[in-house]
């Protein structure tokens, strides 16, 4: 039984177009051209309990809009959405007590007060019993190593400390469903890693269903078995992360280092290999998966090879290529 079900979701915005410059501004005061922007255009997917799913896509792909519809913030233009059996936009308190939304660029903590005061306020809002509150707070604080931080005014905290406190504030009511919108944005590598470990731990410990959006592929690679790629408001891919490689990367990369300087034209005999970068002593080829062995053998036989390295295209590369619409087959 899926926890999140989305079918044929659409969300259009009306925006007006303005020509650049002052003249354009004056014109737009009297005569505005409106246009529908299809932020989400016919998106469907379903997510089971306990899954940790990554939403990826370029800026403006519709990831955040989808999360906002799932949170009940935005009223969908069309389509059905169900989370934990509720229609999010009804914003029923019973539903709201079971999920949480964390946005890397927005904060709910009171700026001039210690985070602990905001936590206590959330306890009142979510009606968390005192004993459960104490227990959960203890656990989250030790998982995130925040003991000394929660009594300091939020405005005096570093971005990383603040993000950790935001996570605590969002999780005190032990949500079954968690939407994380770029939770690691702007953080340094060490802090990103800590947040990642925490998310993984939370997912396993509480069996929470989590959707994560991020621009950092490392977040997605480390955390998510399943990814949904969204582009221009449509689902482009939905499946296991390593299936992206199978589906879209039918080429491998062959990096060859030579003993002496080579000329580019000398590789003309190897038709099946495409040259990606060329220097006289080091050349990188891309080769169809099923031809890799044959070509590697040929290279070793006919050229003074010192070193030869076969690698998969990285997920970053593949996704970049998917988004730039390049033909990479």
């Amino acid at each position, binding site marked *: 039984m899926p926890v999140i079900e989305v079918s044929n979701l659409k969300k259009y915005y009306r925006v007006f177009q303005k020509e650049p410059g002052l003249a354009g501004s004056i014109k737009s005061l009297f005569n505005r051209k409106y246009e529908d922007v299809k932020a989400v255009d016919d998106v469907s997917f379903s997510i089971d309990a306990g899954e940790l799913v990554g939403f990826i896509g370029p800026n403006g792909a519709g990831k955040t809009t989808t999360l906002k519809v799932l949170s009940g913030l*935005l009223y969908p233009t069309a389509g059905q959405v169900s989370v934990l059996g509720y229609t999010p936009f009804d914003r029923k308190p019973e539903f709201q007590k079971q999920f*949480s939304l964390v946005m890397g660029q927005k904060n709910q903590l009171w700026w001039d007060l210690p985070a602990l005061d905001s936590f206590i306020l959330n306890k009142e809002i979510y009606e968390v019993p005192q004993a459960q509150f104490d227990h959960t707070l203890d656990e989250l604080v030790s998982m995130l190593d925040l003991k000394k931080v929660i009594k300091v005014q939020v405005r005096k905290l570093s971005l990383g400390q603040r993000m950790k406190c935001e996570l605590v504030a969002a999780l005190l009511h032990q949500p079954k469903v968690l939407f994380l919108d770029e939770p690691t944005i702007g953080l340094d590598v060490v802090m990103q890693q800590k947040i990642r470990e925490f998310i993984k731990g939370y997912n396993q410990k509480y069996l929470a269903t989590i959707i994560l959006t991020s621009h950092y592929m490392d977040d997605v690679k480390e955390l998510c078995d399943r990814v949904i790629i969204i582009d221009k408001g449509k689902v482009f891919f939905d499946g296991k992360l390593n299936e992206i490689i199978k589906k879209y990367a039918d080429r491998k990369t062959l990096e060859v280092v030579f003993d002496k300087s080579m000329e580019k034209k000398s590789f003309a005999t190897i038709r099946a290999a495409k040259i990606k970068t060329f220097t006289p002593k080091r050349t990188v080829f891309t080769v169809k998966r099923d031809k890799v062995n044959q070509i590697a053998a040929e290279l070793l036989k006919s050229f003074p090879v010192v070193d030869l390295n076969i690698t998969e295209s990285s997920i970053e590369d593949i996704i970049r290529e998917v988004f730039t619409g390049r033909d990479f087959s």
Partner: protein
Amino acid sequence: MKRYFKLYLSFIKNCLIREMEFRSNFIFHNLVSLIWAVVVMLIFFFIYQHVNTVNGWTMEEVLLLTAVYFLIDRIFDSCFEINFNNFVPLVNTGQLDLILIKPASSQFFVSLRQFSFAMIFSNLAMAGVIIYLALTYFSPIYWWQVVSFLVLLICSVVITYSLWFMTLLPVFWWGRIDNIQHLFRPFHQLCRVPIDVVGRFKSILTYIIPLAFVATIPAQSLIGTLSPWLVIYGVLAAGFLLWLSHRLWNFALRHYTSASS
């Protein structure tokens, strides 16, 4: 209901902790708000050196009305105005997102999240002026006058809140209108003078857009010139407008577009 009361106490507590950090701000706000009230009373005092009554209102009555207006205005400011000033940025920057996901009334949140202590002394001073004027010029004051005054005081705050709140809602359609929270202010200022002076528009301002309930009618309850059924009408009007503001809020939220990510 009890839960919201508890929540509101938490809001107030948090605001108090914060406010105590900014002491000079606190003192200055109180001072400015007192000066406002004193200057307006002085103006009426000087006007009444030339006339005895304005449309049946004597100087003492107008001074009482002014004190009532300022008391109610300051209560409104303490509870709501600080929130209304944050309203447009809240909607335009998408900070409303994190309020809308909370399992509590979002209208309650956006209207009452912050409480300003900056008017506390000014409020006490106005209450003192009202008591002084009432006892000096309008005694005897009967208990039912005090009760109806207190009821009308609450009605006045609720009516002002509801009307003002509804004027904020176009921001969901029109986006960036930074000063929409001031749209209602001129109409509110009109309530400083006895509503009777508007002549034949009086019934409209009593029954349809009940601005008469903002200050004139509460003051009349102390002066002793109020027909009792207007107290009942005030309660009904306040209830209806509050309900209407809630319906319109929910309708407006359908057009919320949030902002960026």
